Every structure is written in structure tokens, then in C-alpha cells.
């Protein structure tokens, strides 16, 4: 673990910090140029980044490959949509429902999924998310397949999350706090046990930590943070639909994380930005953007298992000319 002070000028830290700075400038720029569309677009990136941070806790640190995190995003979204349907616009109630429902769903699905590992774990989390998907499809009174628009967005002390600037600022604050916490937790006892369990679960047990308990807690915390992302997304779109729970979203989150760098602090933000940014740019040029998109993802995948974050770390190490220090996030063997 290298000290944070000497770290700050390395590309792996500098680039994300510049990105955060630009994120702060986006609403200012949007306000003066009246480009609300782009503020909403970047808000979406921030929200997905939060969800990927959440996934990173379970997948990146704990090694739990969840293909069902869309379930929690969906629960977060419907935590706004369902109360709003009955005219409840109190954001605190939305948040409470969101955190509670995600915690309970995370606890139950996590406890069951953790009885398996590897492919079994992936399939079970996927199955739970699909169950959630079809549950909300079947709720015809809330729009069923078509989803439901939200007329009463979350109100917090007079702050209306339905406003594009409001939801942008709140998302940015949540993302910064979540990223900060992930940097702290990474080397905290909890994070060390998770990362240890990913490397060698048997040994973590032998050391005196019951790995499954720690993994379950990480899964529940991850679910709750992912729910918050869903809550923000519902406010941004003023809309919630079962498609938020589709397995494609779960897959996108995993791809974003792999792209950005599994288990790294800034990987989620880099991955979400690269994924959604690339999508938008390629769409401008061609209708067949998915074909090029796939190729680019393959290419970034070839950069190595630490994704963009690992690539940036590699640059700064080459610049420093010292290959003595290995990147701190090398414990990636599962």
C-alpha cells in the first residue's frame, strides 16, 4: 500500500480526479448554455457509476459475480414509482422503502445465492433478478410491461429530485461519497477480509473470519447502494419500468465494471463513463454502433484484467520508470 500523498500525481489517480472536476463543471456549463439534455445525460452516467460502485463492493472486492444487480436498481426505481402512484412524494419515505426493500431482498437472495459459488452464483442471482422483472411486468395496475410515469418525484426538505440539476448534484455528491468510502473500505478490516476471501476463501476461514458472513454483508450493502442508484434514476427519468430490472442492465453493470477495472477505486466511474460515453458517440456516427462497440470492448478487455484503471496505473508506472511497486489491486485471482 503506497501512501496517498505521493499517489496523487499518478495517472491512475489524476485522471479520475480531473473527471470528477469536469463533472462538477457540467451543470455550470449546462446552465449557461442551456444544454439541459447533456446535464441529464451526464446525470445518467453518474447514476450508473453509483450502481457500478455498488457492484464493485460485491464483485470487485468480494469476488461475487452477480448478474442480478438490476433487481436492486429496479426496486430503487419502484420505491419512488409506487408511493408516487398513491400521491406520496416524501423523498425520505421513498429512500426508506428503497433501503429497506433492497436490504431485505439482498439478504434473502444473497443468503441463498451464497450457498453456491462460481457459475451457480451467477445463475441464481440472474434468476432472482428475472423473478423481480416478471413480478413487476405482472403488476398491471402500475403499467405492467409499459412501466409507469412518476408525477410525484422525491421531495427532500423542499428539494425536488425531479429537477435535472437537483438530481445531478445529488447524484454527484452520492458518487463522490461512495467512491471515497470505497477507497477507505478497501484497506479497512472489512475490505481486507472481502479481498482476502476473493483470493483464498478457505484461508480467510482458517484465519478466523467466517467468509460467508462477510460476503453476505457486502452483498446487502451493495444491494442498498444499487437501490439508491435506482431511486435517482427513477427521479431523473420521472419513469419506472420493468426494463430497469432486465438482465441486460445487470450485464451492462458488469461490463462497465470490467471495463473500468474490477476491484479498483476509480474503475466504476471510468467504466460507466467509457461505456455510456462510447455508446453516445458511436450512435452519432452509425446505426450499427453495437458492432463497433463490441470491438472496442474486446480491445479494452485485452488491455488486461484491471481495465482502464489498471491501464492508467501502468502508464504512471512506466513514466516513473520504476517497476518495483506492483499496483495495489493485483489480488485479482479468483
Amino acid at each position: 500500500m503506497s501512501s496517498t500523498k505521493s499517489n496523487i500525481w499518478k495517472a491512475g489517480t489524476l485522471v479520475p480526479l480531473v473527471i470528477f472536476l469536469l463533472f462538477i463543471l457540467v451543470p455550470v456549463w449546462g446552465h449557461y448554455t442551456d444544454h439541459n439534455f447533456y446535464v441529464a445525460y451526464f446525470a445518467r452516467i453518474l447514476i450508473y457509476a453509483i450502481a457500478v460502485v455498488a457492484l464493485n463492493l460485491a464483485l470487485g472486492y468480494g469476488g461475487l459475480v452477480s448478474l442480478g444487480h438490476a433487481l436492486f436498481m429496479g426496486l430503487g426505481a419502484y420505491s419512488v414509482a409506487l408511493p408516487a402512484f398513491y400521491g406520496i412524494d416524501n423523498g425520505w419515505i421513498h429512500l426508506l422503502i428503497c433501503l429497506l426493500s433492497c436490504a431485505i431482498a439482498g439478504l434473502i437472495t444473497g443468503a441463498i445465492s451464497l450457498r453456491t459459488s462460481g457459475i451457480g452464483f451467477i445463475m441464481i442471482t440472474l434468476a432472482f433478478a428475472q423473478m423481480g422483472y416478471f413480478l413487476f411486468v405482472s403488476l398491471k395496475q402500475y403499467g405492467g410491461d409499459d412501466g409507469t410515469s412518476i408525477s410525484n418525484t422525491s421531495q427532500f426538505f423542499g428539494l425536488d429530485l425531479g429537477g435535472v440539476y437537483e438530481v445531478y448534484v445529488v447524484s454527484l455528491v452520492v458518487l463522490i461519497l461512495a467512491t471515497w468510502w470505497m477507497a477507505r473500505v478497501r484497506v479497512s478490516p472489512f475490505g481486507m477480509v472481502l479481498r482476502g476471501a476473493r483470493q483464498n476463501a478457505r484461508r480467510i476461514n482458517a484465519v478466523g473470519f467466517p467468509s460467508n458472513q462477510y460476503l453476505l454483508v457486502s452483498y446487502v450493502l451493495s444491494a442498498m447502494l444499487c437501490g439508491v442508484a435506482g431511486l435517482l434514476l427513477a427521479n431523473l427519468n420521472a419513469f419506472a419500468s420493468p426494463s430497469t430490472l432486465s438482465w441486460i442492465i445487470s450485464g451492462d453493470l458488469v461490463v462497465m465494471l470490467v471495463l473500468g477495472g474490477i476491484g479498483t477505486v476509480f474503475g466504476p466511474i471510468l467504466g460507466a463513463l467509457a461505456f455510456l460515453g462510447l455508446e453516445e458517440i458511436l450512435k452519432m456516427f452509425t446505426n450499427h454502433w453495437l458492432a463497433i462497440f463490441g470491438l472496442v470492448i474486446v480491445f479494452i478487455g485485452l488491455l488486461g484484467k484491471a481495465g482502464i484503471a489498471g491501464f492508467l496505473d501502468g502508464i504512471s508506472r512506466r513514466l516513473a520508470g520504476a517497476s518495483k511497486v506492483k499496483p495495489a489491486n493485483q489480488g485479482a485471482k479468483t
Partner: protein
Amino acid sequence: MSEPLLRTESLVKRFGGLLVTDSVSIDVRPGELHAIIGPNGAGKTTLINQLTGELRADSGQVLFAGENVTALGIHLRARRGLLRSYQITSIFEGFTVLENTVLAAMGAKEHAFRFWKPILARQDLVDIANQALEITNMRDLAEMPAAELAYGQRRQLELAMALAAQPKVLLLDEPMAGMSVQESASVVAMLKRLKGSHTILLIEHDMDAVFALADRITVLVYGKAMFSGSPEEIRNHPEVKAVYLGDEAIG
């Protein structure tokens, strides 16, 4: 004679039709170094696995510090002070030597549901870890990623991790396996230093080491504890000689 710290009562383990642990009753007294020897496939590692709780015994009991721990899982036994090192090295490759050791120090004492302060900011645990690294001659390598250690150093780290847990009983599964002559000599010297202050159950192939270190030796043959006694008694026991040591003189 003082009460044994670790004791088994007619421990039995079968893998299918194979009787791997055949009604083994052994005990380890406080402060002694008890060695278990036996030919390959005698069930030595299987026995250790039952002591630590990685394997459930089919019948019989494990008693540790006056408590029946037969039903307890591995992490609960570790928390009570029953620690082991592995024959096949098992360390956290993604962490530094110090991080590995601090984690081991913490695991023996408390839970890790702490989400904010870095684990290396826990000076008390770092001190314990550094002591363990000192004993195992690993202090200079504290900052090195475990993945970069040489084989012998990994074995040393394995021992440091077990020591950092400040165990009541230390189960060492062939700590010198695969080591060079110099490395094993330094491990023997280290175990001599630990003797007396630690209670150790040692499984080892190196007969010179065993006879130099052990207070008591148990011979395990086909899962059966054939004989227990002092190194002198083992050396002169005709049956043991025939079964395990061969007819050549040992010494």
C-alpha cells in the same frame, strides 16, 4: 502432570470404504512439542484437518482447553486459539507480507466489521504482526507483496501468520516441506526458540528435525496411533523400527 490442552477421544474418519483415521486418541500438554510421524498416507494431514475443524470427524471428540469443540467450525476454533499452518502454502497473494500477518492477528481476536479505518492503522495488531515477522526472520520483507516471495519465504510467512494469531496450540503441517537444507535449518532453530513458550503439534517428515525438537512423538500408521512416547522410546521401540524407521539405526 498438567491437564492436556488439546485432546482427541477415539477420532474416526472414513473416506468411503477407506478408514483414514482409526480411533485416534492423542493429547498435547501445555508447553510441549508433540510430533506426529508416519509413512505417507498414514492420515496425518487428515488428522490435523479434523483438529482444526476443516473436516468433520465421523465419530469421536476433539477437546480443546477443556471444551468440547467437535461441533465447531474452523473460524470458531481459530478464535479460541487453535491455529494451523498449511502443508501446501496458503497465503493471500494480493496482500503484502505485513497485511497478511496483520489480518491473521486480527482474525484470532475480533470481528472485522469495521468499515472506515485502515487495518494497518491498528498499531496494536501491527505490533503483534511485527513480532511474529521478527521471530520468523521476515521483518525486512514486511512491505513486499506476498506474490513475489520465494518458496521458502512463503513457508516462513505461513508460520508468521500462525504465530501472529497468538495461538494456544499451534498445529504445524510439515513446515519444512520442500525447503532447502539451510531454510529447514533456520526453521528448526526457530521452532527451538518457540519451544516452551508455545504448545505445538508438529507433523514432519524430516526425522532429524523431529528427534531434535520433539518432547513426545506419536507414530501414526494406517490411521492408527500405534505408539506414543519420548524420542528415546520411539527410537528403541522394535515395532516402530520395523514399520516406519526401517532396520537401520537412526541418529
